[in-house]
């Protein structure tokens, strides 16, 4: 496209610092953090104004990875959007697939067979495990523990990605779910392997927890930093572990009971302080609950078909109407809003990305803290730019 690239952002600017009467008493430094900065988890930019090292203003700037995913979705068929959803949050392609499949099933009134429902739960919880593990790895790296903790996390993630690869053919871009079921069935050997990975995961969490949960540096860098109140979290539509760390018990697996989540026995961890440490702890506890769900699902999975025989993949034209479907993704509420006009392509295809909305309060959390804390606060939000910019 013959589009003119945006002017490159200025890397810094010095502004006068004024007291109440308007006389200059010093200087404020405005710096542009990103878009190419390892702590921004992608191509994300923060316009930060600093007084010494303290943040006095922070504006997030997005759009470096924008490809108008929604416009693409309006110009292709319903099924053709499925592989595109993998690219939204590229850590969690399985839950993205599920959210989209769930919405289209609601639109077209398709049923999902028992076995496919169980497989979906297993895939979603494995995704949650690897997402939270990686996030903790990244976020410890943001605090300055370069390399080693992240490699521990990535070692475990590899095991889950191997499971995804053996069933879907791809490690990250799984493109596994279909309207009315899943693409291929899993075999008994896969179930045995998954049981082993899940059984070993608790040991890994124990080990990881020993290093981090009571680590003096982690405590000093995370406790009472980036505090978000319960009222602000609700008002700003924060979802996922961020919301629950602020003390709100709202998990869509319990509220909507989509799929077959009402059959499993698990709890929703809720934080007290809403600081970074609570967000870390919530994710650790959520992983423990995910392991519980996985153990139950792997034990109870029935035999049978994995696709609704009535669903057809080619020539799929749902009746006119509109639906909003949502699931509890690892990062928060992932929603899809579809309007059908009876044609093979959706009239409107909208993605409600959790990490985009969760960034609303980034400035509120960072004000008054130091620039080095802003990096850790951003890490605790858990953003993926593929989803933020779409």
């Amino acid at each position: 496209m013959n589009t003119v690239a945006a002017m490159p952002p200025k890397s810094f600017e010095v502004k006068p610092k004024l007291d109440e009467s308007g006389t200059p008493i010093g200087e404020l430094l405005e710096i542009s953090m990103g878009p190419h900065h390892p702590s921004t988890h992608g191509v994300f930019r923060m316009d930060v104004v600093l007084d010494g090292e303290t943040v006095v203003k922070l504006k997030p700037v997005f759009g470096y990875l924008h490809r108008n995913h929604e416009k693409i979705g309006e110009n292709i068929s319903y099924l053709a959007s499925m592989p595109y959803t993998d690219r939204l949050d590229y850590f969690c392609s399985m839950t993205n697939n599920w959210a989209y499949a769930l919405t289209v099933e609601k639109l077209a009134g398709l049923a999902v067979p028992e076995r496919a429902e169980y497989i979906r739960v297993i895939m979603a919880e494995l995704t949650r495990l690897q997402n939270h593990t990686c996030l903790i790895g990244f976020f410890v790296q943001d605090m300055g523990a370069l390399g080693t903790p992240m490699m521990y996390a990535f070692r475990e993630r590899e095991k889950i990605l191997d499971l995804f690869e053996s069933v879907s053919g791809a490690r990250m871009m799984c493109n596994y779910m279909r309207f009315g079921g899943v693409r291929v069935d899993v075999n008994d050997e896969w179930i045995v392997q998954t049981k082993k990975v899940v059984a070993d995961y608790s040991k890994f969490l124990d080990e990881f927890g020993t290093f981090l949960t009571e680590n003096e540096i982690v405590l000093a860098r995370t406790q009472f930093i980036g505090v978000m109140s319960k009222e602000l979290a609700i008002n700003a539509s924060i979802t996922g572990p961020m919301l629950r760390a602020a003390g709100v018990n709202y998990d869509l697996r319990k509220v909507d009971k989509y799929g077959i989540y009402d059959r499993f026995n698990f709890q929703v961890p809720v934080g007290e302080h809403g600081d970074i440490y609570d967000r870390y702890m919530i994710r650790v506890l959520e992983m423990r609950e995910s392991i519980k769900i996985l153990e139950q699902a792997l034990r109870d999975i029935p035999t049978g078909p994995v696709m609704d025989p009535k669903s057809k993949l080619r020539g799929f034209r749902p009746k006119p109407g509109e639906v909003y479907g949502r699931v509890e993704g690892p990062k928060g509420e992932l929603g899809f809003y579809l309007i059908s006009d009876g044609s093979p392509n959706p009239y409107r295809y909208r993605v409600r990305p959790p990490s985009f909305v969760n960034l609303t309060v980034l400035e509120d959390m960072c004000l008054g803290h130091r620039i080095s804390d802003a990096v850790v606060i951003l890490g605790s939000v858990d953003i993926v730019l593929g989803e933020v910019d779409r």
Partner: protein
Amino acid sequence: METPEQIKARIEAAVPSAKIEILANECALGERSLLVEAASGFAVARFLRDDAQLKLDYCSNVTGVDWPDKELTEKIKVKQVVDGVEKEIEEVKKTIRPGFLEVVYHLYSMELKHGPFVLRMRTENRAAKTHLPSLTPLWRGAEFQEREVYDLYGVFFDGHPDLRRILMWDEFVGFPMRRDYVAPDDFEYEPTPHDEVLVEARKHYQVEPKAEVKA
């Protein structure tokens, strides 16, 4: 949660000036939505948030939809006198529904754990009068999503604290999610263009035939 009819009646009692219409949804599992006139949109939204039975404290999804001018055809039977005999003749009547931009809010309640409630507002047209009240003062969660609707659809939200482009860059002209948006020509420069690339190249550059090299 109450049915849309009940909610409509209660809104009309609380906000007497509000003009509300319930829109049907042909999808069986989808929700019906309430279309509110822009002038009373903010007052209705505040009622929905603060009402004790609804408590829609969580604004989950905000999005725009573009509805361009649409030709509606309708068959009507007209009585006409043909050769002295009165006959019923079918006539196709064509009317044009003027286009508009629509903003859709999906509201939930975190406290009472119900929802979704679908609220819609429409602009007068797609060209000049595309102003709607911003609901960001009620739900901070709408801040970035309303900016996105402004950026991609061109709806101006009155009362938004920071209405700037969010995904496209500030100098960008046009609203790419509108259905009549034409993307810029996808052309890549080639030193020796030929065939259809040459036709394209002439549109972008005046390609002069090269002067013959003298021996």
